[in-house]
């Protein structure tokens, strides 16, 4: 009973999000290479001029299985083991936006609600009453509407931009946790092994304990 309560406590603590008042759109990120590669492509277009991905090297993209030609075109004359730094220097970025754009390598892990937060933020731009761009998820943002969703009313066009945002977030989620798939795969083996082992240990325990005769304590006194 007691341990159940504690585990329940653990769960409610881990699943709650406090960061933002605006309702977030919950999304599931894709993990397939094609989507993640499309996301990387969109990110190189829309984000990479200002934002770095310093914990990701171009070689990591190749190892994940992305198209070699694409990776070559992104890295230009940088070595394969170079980290994906932003094209703009941090000083210039501070000059332009008044604030250094954060590194994106861990972005989907660094916010409550993770990928859903980043997705809602990217697609959360709107035109305020006085004609200025605003963001409903993070109103203080200095980032311009880089996906160009403001003012798009056509449903098809909107869903295309949302699809792009979802690709980008899928790429970011991969970048934040590149061993995620491997961890899950290994996890199933480990759990399978442990279930068999624990079942055998249970049999061993019963076998060992069956050697005992019943004592008064076990016969119902307590």
């Amino acid at each position: 009973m007691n341990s159940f309560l504690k585990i329940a406590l653990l769960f409610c603590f881990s699943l709650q999000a406090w960061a933002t008042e605006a309702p977030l759109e919950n999304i599931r990120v894709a993990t397939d290479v094609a989507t993640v590669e499309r996301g990387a492509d969109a990110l190189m277009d829309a984000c990479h001029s200002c934002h770095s991905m310093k914990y990701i090297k171009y070689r990591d993209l190749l190892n994940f299985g992305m198209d070699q030609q694409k990776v070559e075109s992104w890295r230009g004359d940088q070595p394969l083991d170079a980290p994906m730094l932003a094209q703009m220097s941090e000083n210039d970025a501070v000059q332009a936006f008044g604030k250094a754009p954060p590194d994106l390598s861990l972005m989907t892990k660094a916010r409550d609600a993770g990928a859903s937060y980043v997705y809602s933020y990217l697609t959360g731009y709107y035109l305020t009453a006085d004609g200025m761009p605003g963001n409903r998820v993070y109103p203080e943002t200095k980032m311009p509407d880089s996906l160009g969703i403001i003012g798009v009313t056509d449903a098809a066009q909107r869903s295309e931009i949302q699809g792009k945002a979802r690709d980008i977030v899928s790429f970011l989620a991969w970048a934040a946790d590149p061993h995620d798939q491997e961890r899950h795969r290994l996890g199933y083996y480990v759990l399978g092994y442990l279930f068999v082992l624990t079942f055998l240990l249970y049999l061993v325990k019963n076998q060992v304990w069956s050697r005992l005769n019943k004592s008064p304590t076990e016969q119902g006194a307590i």
Partner: protein
Amino acid sequence: MSNRITEWIDQRFPLTSFVKHELTGYPTPRNLSYWWNFGFLAGFVLVLQVATGIFLAMHYKADIALSFDSVQHIMRDVNYGWLLRYMHSTGASAFFLVIFIHMARTLYYGSFRAPRELLWWTGQGLLLLLMATAFMGYLLPWGQMSFWGATVITNLFGATPFIGDQVVVWLRGDYTVGDATLTRFFALHYLFPFLIIGAVVVHLVALHTVKSSNPSGINLADKDNIPFHPYFTAKDFFGLGVFLIVYSVFVFFMPDSLIEPANNIPANPMQTPNHIVPEWYFLPFYAILRSVPNMVGGVVAMGLSVMMFAFMPFLDRSRISGGAHFRPIYRLQFYLFLLDMLVLGYVGYVPPTSQTMLIGQIATLCYFGSFFLVPFISRAEERWLIRRGLPQGIITLMESEAQDIEKRKLKQHLRKGDKHE
């Protein structure tokens, strides 16, 4: 051959007699429930934390310019570094979960009562060491929550009378939490587990002197004790299997649920996070700290809230055996206390509002109240239970126990008599 080797060793070191005394011949009450598994599990998690920690230390760099990057290096580039790190970060939570259950069992069954006071107090010391180790380890990834958590907690030592400011600087090695703090926390985080191992040995020596308590709460006669090995080794290993399943679910499928998102942002002394929260295992104590409006009072209350458990042998005045098992009021009190801990945990987690502050203050009063009321309630409950008549089961047990003790005394007496003649 192996006989000859054992013989050779036994002439030089008491190996066989040690194994016999502490394992194959160590008397353990046969009626122990699965709640008695958690001491063994705590020992296992300790070994797990030391083993993963040593390998993490080989790749970690204790330098404010490098530590965040080195953790990412472990997570991304080191072979199975992500596994080591997630095992270690999940292991910290597992350690506290196991210890809290271990303590709750002791409170429920009254295992802290005579003659086990010293056993309980060495456990209390272990809890403090564990908390210190976890707190210092949390600074090492050098994320936002690491930095601000350490800043808030080291600040609390400013409440020391007269020399508060000096103590804070002495702890941090600097005026703010910085490189000096990180390097010393790393050194101490590596040292403390070995102190814990030493304290565990003391805890075990005390245990093997007074032996395990049991759900009935009275010392069982020899016929109800069975050797630890193979009976309880078999039972403990089965429990370990169940524990490892739960642990692995967290390590492999939800490891980030135990890491605050803000700790994936490198420490930034210029920017306070919206909301500073400690790890879940500190939340109830943190809520007590915040519930007292005055800082010194809050620090004293928080310190006391951790130390209150040590007073239990003095506070519980009932002589009815079996802890909460035969004591309905104490049992109710126990469950209310657990509920109060959950409320405090919740209050510690949410951002403070006037409403949660009020709930926190009431819960804090309940927390200390439940300790202070124990002496009076336990006395009154004992009188009431005796007047009402104890359950037949416990009377039978107590009588048969008393008879056995008498028989044993008589036997010893006769033996002594033989010698004298």
